[in-house]
């Protein structure tokens, strides 16, 4: 209360401070201190990874994990990328990185599009059982991955997609539809109904309404869905390790094979570099579209 009053008093003097005048009350100080501590906590592992991936191996073995490198080197990154022993081949992570990309791009695109289509149908056509259908799709979000492993393996076998990147794409699309439908349905439920009705009267077809009216006005929720799906699919290990073979391993599985290889010397610096390579794409996606993520999650909660 005292703090609020102080802020209110200070505000007229602080030109252009948009009402959030700096006021260093104890509460605020404690708040910042807490934030700094938390940021430190979150950034520490990143620091350890980066620092150690840029050190020669003997520096890690002899020295301190927290210390900065004495001799900076990019060698571990190059090794992890192109020459490290993964399984039996010294290929580095590169082919698996490509596998992951070949898996994640179509899987994200297809599941997002199907989600948009489902959201459109579920909100704009009040057919019988729409709620039940949506509830069922929502339920799929809560099914643990492990339960579907064996039936899914069988399905992939029947379809002839076992051990292929295409198979992984299918698995991730199927698993992603629940989430993407949820996102789009809720976004389109708050979408101005008159726009859709107007488009229908103007002569837009079923897909015309979707492609000309709904999708161009769905940027926030598309971003949210893409980030969500990209992160989940890129980081997935269980499906990758269950449904792929040497030629189709995604990056996560390859990284595991790199780190867990039981022969030879444990090249921690290479492991750190490899782990960082695996984390980079999701980091990039967040950095590039983070602000849309928050905006999109809030969309529909406030009438705009």
């Amino acid at each position: 209360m005292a703090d609020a009053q102080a802020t209110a008093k200070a505000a007229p003097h602080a030109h252009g401070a948009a009402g959030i005048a700096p006021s260093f009350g104890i509460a605020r100080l404690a708040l910042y201190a807490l934030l700094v501590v938390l940021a430190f906590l979150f950034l520490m592992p990143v620091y350890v990874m980066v620092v150690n991936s840029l050190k020669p191996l003997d520096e890690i073995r002899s020295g301190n994990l927290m210390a900065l490198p004495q001799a900076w080197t990019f060698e571990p990154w190059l090794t992890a990328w192109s020459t490290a022993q993964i399984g039996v081949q010294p290929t580095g992570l590169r082919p698996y990185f490509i596998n992951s990309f070949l898996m994640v791009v179509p899987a994200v695109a297809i599941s997002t599009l199907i989600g948009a289509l489902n959201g459109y149908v579920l909100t704009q056509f009040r057919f019988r059982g729409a709620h039940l259908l949506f509830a069922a799709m929502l339920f799929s979000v809560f099914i643990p991955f492990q339960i579907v492993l064996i039936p899914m393996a069988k399905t992939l076998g029947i379809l002839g997609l076992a051990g292929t990147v295409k198979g992984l794409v299918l698995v991730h699309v199927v698993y992603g539809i629940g989430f993407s439908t949820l996102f789009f349905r809720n976004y389109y439920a708050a979408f101005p109904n008159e726009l859709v009705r107007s488009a229908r009267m103007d002569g837009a077809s079923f897909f015309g309404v979707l492609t000309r009216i709904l999708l161009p006005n769905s940027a926030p929720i598309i971003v949210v869905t893409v980030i969500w799906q990209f992160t989940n699919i890129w980081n997935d290990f269980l499906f990758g390790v269950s449904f792929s073979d040497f030629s189709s391993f995604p990056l996560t599985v390859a990284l595991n094979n790199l780190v867990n290889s039981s022969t030879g010397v444990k090249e921690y610096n290479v492991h750190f570099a490899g782990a960082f390579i695996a984390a980079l794409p999701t980091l990039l996606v967040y950095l590039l579209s983070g602000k849309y993520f928050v905006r999109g999650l809030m969309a529909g909660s406030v009438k705009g």
Partner: protein
Amino acid sequence: MASLDLINVQKSFGPVKILHDISIGLQNGEFLVLVGPSGCGKSTLMNIIAGLEEPSGGLLRLEGKDITNVAPAERNISMVFQSYALYPNMTVAQNIEFPLEMRKVDKASRAERVKSVSKLLQIEHLLERKPRQLSGGQRQRVAIGRALAREPKLYLFDEPLSNLDAQLRVDMRTEIKKLHQRLKATIVYVTHDQIEAMTLATRIAVMKGGVLQQLGTPYEVYNRPANTFVAGFMGSPRMNLVKSRLSALSGGGVALTIQEGTGAKVQIDLPPDVVPAALMDHVGQEVIVGVRPEAVSLAGADMVAGPLQRFVEAQVEVIEPTGADTLAVIDLGGHEFTVRLDPDLSLAPGQRCRFLVDLSKLVCFDAKTETLIA
């Protein structure tokens, strides 16, 4: 442009009846206003005309052709929505040409059409803007422009002015009326604002509870309301409705006696020539008398009542100057009457005055059925 016929249109959601048996025939070039309080079914009826909702029963004919089961896009009907429903991702020009594009009209004629429509509505300078960069009135124009673009057979307006501020609303009302006069278009217009209905319509359909109460010209609806609901709904301030006893006069004609509670009795004699035959059947019974506020005026001291005028004495209770005229609440037989008087009069609350009632503007309703006795 075309004629529109609604034949026994009904709509129910499960056991709930939203529309009861609505039949309206509309000539080419008519401006029909559907008016009523919220929940009266007027928007549902409009959606049925648009094809956005299916009727549970009845027929719709546009230009004589049955369109009851035709998809909205194929009906060739344009609609202007309350929220304008401009596509936010498109520019004004793209918005206007969207219906043409959907109909596979070639690019050159689309551009031509956008040009002529925007010229008509004076929005040529806005063509490259996005809807969010426009003011309310400009959005309204663009929405109308989009409706005009494809030259439909019928225009629908769903409360198009209710999102505008008061001044702009009056301006746009005039614009819409001008547009109608110029295009000679057939228009169905939904509103809950009775002034919009009066000013715009060639015919008004007053609705309540899914039932069509009256269909008529603004003059008919205002001066000969079919029942007390229409009488009270159309006009502001409302028509005064008061119960009164009807008794026969010796020289023909009838006398209306107004007395509520402990108020002083007021009697108004109606000469035979203004008494409809049906009213004579109600002699000895109670009727509801309807008097428009402007049917009463202040009587000058030396004034003589004409053949269709009667003097009444009443006490002034409240004075409400509005500028253009002064509204006064007077006590007539214990009932509060709102009357519309000259703005220049100096009256004081509590004053007793003589008022002049115009008998030709007086209507009577059956006390039980509340329908007009004509």
